[in-house]
């Protein structure tokens, strides 16, 4: 019986339905097996869930955006310094001092800040992360408080962001901004 079942399965997988049927017709048990297998083949693919709930999609997107922001955050000046100084601990004092001096100059000149900006646009709240000062196009996520929906658009930084607004709405990066906006490398000039 086991052999017949395996042969029936093989025929079915190869799409040779008639041969499978003919083989199954030999015994009642094999016929029942064939029918059950036919039912499984027809029904199992139907059990695939066609859509993800919207709420789940939103949760995933929010979480990923939050993570993007965290990943974009750069270490503070003090953290950078500590990181750079660690391997220098084994150096002699004069070398250490010279190295530290050079590093300080380098770090100071290259220091870039992560800034989060929040803007109120009509009824919507927009959060914007502007990391690269050279960025022209910025991907912005709009969070609509009323409908709880997130939409995205690309804005031209120069046209939409004014310096005085930036200062007014700046949120300190260590305050864990409530999220929603980030610029991606592909959108950078």
């Amino acid at each position, binding site marked *: 019986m086991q052999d017949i*079942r395996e042969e029936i399965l093989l025929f079915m997988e190869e799409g040779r339905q008639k041969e499978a049927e003919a083989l199954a017709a030999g015994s009642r048990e094999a016929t029942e097996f064939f029918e059950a*297998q036919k*039912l499984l083949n027809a*029904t199992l693919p139907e*059990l695939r*869930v066609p859509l993800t709930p919207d709420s*789940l999609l939103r949760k*995933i997107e929010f*979480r*990923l955006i939050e993570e993007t922001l965290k990943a974009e955050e750069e270490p503070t000046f003090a953290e950078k310094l500590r990181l750079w100084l660690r391997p220098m601990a084994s150096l002699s004092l004069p070398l250490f001092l010279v190295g530290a001096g050079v590093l300080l100059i380098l770090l100071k000149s290259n220091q870039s800040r992560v800034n989060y900006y929040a803007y109120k646009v009509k009824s919507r709240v927009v959060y914007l992360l502007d990391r690269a000062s050279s960025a022209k196009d910025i991907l912005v996520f709009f969070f609509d408080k009323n409908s709880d929906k997130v939409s995205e658009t690309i804005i031209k930084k120069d046209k939409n962001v004014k310096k005085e607004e930036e200062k007014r709405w700046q949120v300190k990066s260590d305050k864990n901004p409530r999220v929603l906006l980030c610029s991606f490398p592909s959108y950078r000039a």
Partner: protein
Amino acid sequence: MLVKEYSHRIYSYSLNFSGSRQFAEEATQEAFFRIFKSIDRIEANPKIFELYLYKTAKNICIDNYRKHKGEHIVEEQDFMIPKWDPDYATKELVWRALNSLPQEERNLMIMREIEGLSYEEIATMENIPLGTLKSRLNRIKIKLAEILQKLEKRG
């Protein structure tokens, strides 16, 4: 966007695997989160990305399963098969048969028969030889058909 593209498959897989909507949602979220964290290490190939997602979701589902001391949590299946579906009775029966399989066997059946992954893809993911996988799946199919026959007889 990747989330829109793949989330329904991962959600479907996790839901069928765990039998719990809550677990499935957690697993789908967590799978994307973990992928996001290691995105640099994943080959930029859609098929590999998809398999990696499935594998991650499976690991999360198994972790969840273990956390609940092997207890097999199956909620009402109405959320998967709406009552107005003309094939509700049949689908519900097949779903019950599927859920009576042990976790590892159910996982293989879901990947092959519900998610439609190829033998090669499953063998890669599960790290088992192709021949072994095929014969294992054959045995599981026979077992599943037997369970279904029994359930049908019981009515």
